[in-house]
């Protein structure tokens, strides 16, 4: 689960990582009130779960309450990479002497956490990694060893930070960031920029924060931070029903079990000359209700012209899926042509059930390739 800047900063503060003072604002009036409370110059920042908000005009400096209200009005409602701005973070403006970058994330290959620190903050870190890799200090942390102060020293000296006061503050911040990463079951904690003020104070000016969905049950307070409106409505509807759904731009609705098989199905549809309308994974389920839920989400997309049902049973049983399909068709009366391909556990029984009881718009095909071809034809 991705967190907004203001949520990530709240977690940073809980672990003692210094941030600027700020207020959440949902309207220009709230932004004005926030600026009044904070006093002085403020920065009005769009809260969106995507990058590039600066270039898109989502971050503006305001001289005072009037200005903050006006800037808020300009930013609210912006579309930033497909994300509608509905929330603002109004924060005391910081003077910036230097911009550093600090993050910790999972290195799935090494199976260790990875710290990265560079004095080249404020810009895209990929650019630093590519153009001046020697300026990017990296260090893996073995989870059994845990955080040890030498790790911070290696990062600090490795990044070439030689100001003793900055070293001291960074040593503290790096230790706290590790505690935050582990303590919140985060997958990523990124501070870019980590600024140094003209007075020499080191502070997090932004946050990018991802928490492990599988660990949210340990952190009900973080789980509550989820903003259901941050995802497109059709995906939200699917998620509420326990279905993994991503809308795409084609005509062939796709339903399968297992992410790998569904991805493969998209490829096969494309190779057959069609365009997938969506990615939709039933997961390990496949009972009637799961099929109904998934079909409802898929046919809500007006672009869909045919549906390809590609099931290979393992933990999912073919006869159950067949019953699910039949029940679903009865319940929601779909008119779309539906192509079904069924293999694996109890597939024979499933195919028989469909052949016996299936309506006219249901086409059973023996292989994935043939099923895909048929679905593409039917969508034409």
């Amino acid at each position, binding site marked *: 689960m991705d967190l907004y800047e203001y949520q990530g900063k709240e977690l940073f503060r809980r672990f003692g990582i210094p941030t600027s003072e700020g207020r959440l604002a949902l309207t220009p009036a709230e932004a004005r009130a926030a600026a009044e409370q904070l006093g002085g110059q403020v920065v009005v920042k769009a809260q969106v779960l995507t990058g590039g908000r600066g270039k898109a005009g989502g971050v503006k400096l305001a001289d005072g309450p009037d200005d903050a209200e006006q800037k808020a009005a300009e930013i609210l409602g912006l579309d930033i990479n497909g994300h509608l701005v509905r929330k603002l973070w109004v924060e005391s403006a910081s003077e910036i002497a230097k911009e550093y970058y600090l993050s910790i994330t999972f290195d799935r290959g090494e199976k260790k956490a990875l710290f990265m620190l560079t004095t080249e903050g404020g810009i895209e*870190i990929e650019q630093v990694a590519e153009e001046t890799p020697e300026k990017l200090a990296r260090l893996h942390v073995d989870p059994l060893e845990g955080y040890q102060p030498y790790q911070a020293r290696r990062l600090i000296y490795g990044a070439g930070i030689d100001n003793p006061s900055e070293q001291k503050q960074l040593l503290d911040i790096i230790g706290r960031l590790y505690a935050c990463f582990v303590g919140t079951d985060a997958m990523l904690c990124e501070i870019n920029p980590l600024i140094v003020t003209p007075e020499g104070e080191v502070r997090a000016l932004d946050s*990018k924060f991802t928490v*492990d969905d599988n660990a949210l049950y340990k952190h009900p307070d973080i789980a509550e931070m989820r903003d259901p409106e941050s995802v497109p409505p059709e995906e939200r509807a699917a998620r509420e029903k326990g279905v993994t759904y991503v809308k795409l731009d084609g005509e062939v609705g796709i339903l399968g079990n297992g*992410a790998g*098989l569904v*991805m493969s199905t*998209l490829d096969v549809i494309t190779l057959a000359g069609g365009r997938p309308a969506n990615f939709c994974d039933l997961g390990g389920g496949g009972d009637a209700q799961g099929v109904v839920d998934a079909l409802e989400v898929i046919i809500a997309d007006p672009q869909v012209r045919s549906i390809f049902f590609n099931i290979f049973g393992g933990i999912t049983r073919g006869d159950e899926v067949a019953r699910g399909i039949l029940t679903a068709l009865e319940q929601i009366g779909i008119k779309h042509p539906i192509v079904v391909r069924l293999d694996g556990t109890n597939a024979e029984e499933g195919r028989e059930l469909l052949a016996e009881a299936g309506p006219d718009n249901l086409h059973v095909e023996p292989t994935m390739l043939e099923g895909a071809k048929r679905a593409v034809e039917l969508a034409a």
Partner: protein
Amino acid sequence: MAIIVDNDTKLVVQGATGREGSFHTLRNRAYGTDVVAGVTPGKGGQDLEGIPIFDTVAEAVEETGANTSMVFVPARFAADAIYEDVDAGIETVICIAEGLPAHEMLRIFNYIKPRGITMLGPNCPGALSPGKANVGIIPAEIFREGRIGLVSRSGTLTYQIGHELTQLGLGNSTIVGIGGDPVVGSSFIDVLAKFEADEETEVVVLVGEIGGAEEEKAAEFIGSEMTKPVVGYIAGFSAPPGKTMGHAGAIISGTAGTAEGKKEALEAHGVRVGTTPTEAAQLAAEVAGAVRA
């Protein structure tokens, strides 16, 4: 021979008395797997259609000589179950459970690695050595014995490829699902190394998908360490760019994780890559024919 599971496998199932657990435990036994024990705390002394149930894995190991565990407990109890296996002397842990918190799995991985434990999963379909043993949820009836090793990150996609191979009259030494979670116990490389060392395996089919850099690493390994031919399949050529893990992800792996990139990496090391499961199976058939010739 075969790898990971075979005729020497003596299986204990953690969570053997649950609904899904008991279904697959009995299915594994019906296939011929030597299921020696189940473990459910509080149900020690009972039995599941003749399979003795113990309160702890240590007891199960002591009483039955179990050497392999299948973890079928809910995710919240899975870490505990895996540590219990290691502590009891289990050598191979196959974790079907999915949804373990990643930090827990990170600690488990680093704990078991220097201890020489073989682990598949979490979130994996298990391993099947046709004619010998099936541990997990792979539908064994669609596979037959043979000399093709199959390793995959994806469950159902594995079945699909295996099914295509069977249609072409080919069989498998072992089918291995390594699991789809961010941190899993065995990488492609770990499994490839086992296939390389396995006398029964002549050709390996590697089934990858978009994301991460495991396929690229596997390609390097194949190029430098493997003598046996490998055929690849990658899913996700037409997938939309997925959600990324912030900005740090791509830097770590040094790859964009696209299907195209993975295909190129594999081909650069002599691996032929199919663009559909059917094509991948046909390539495997060709290569297997060449090996035989």
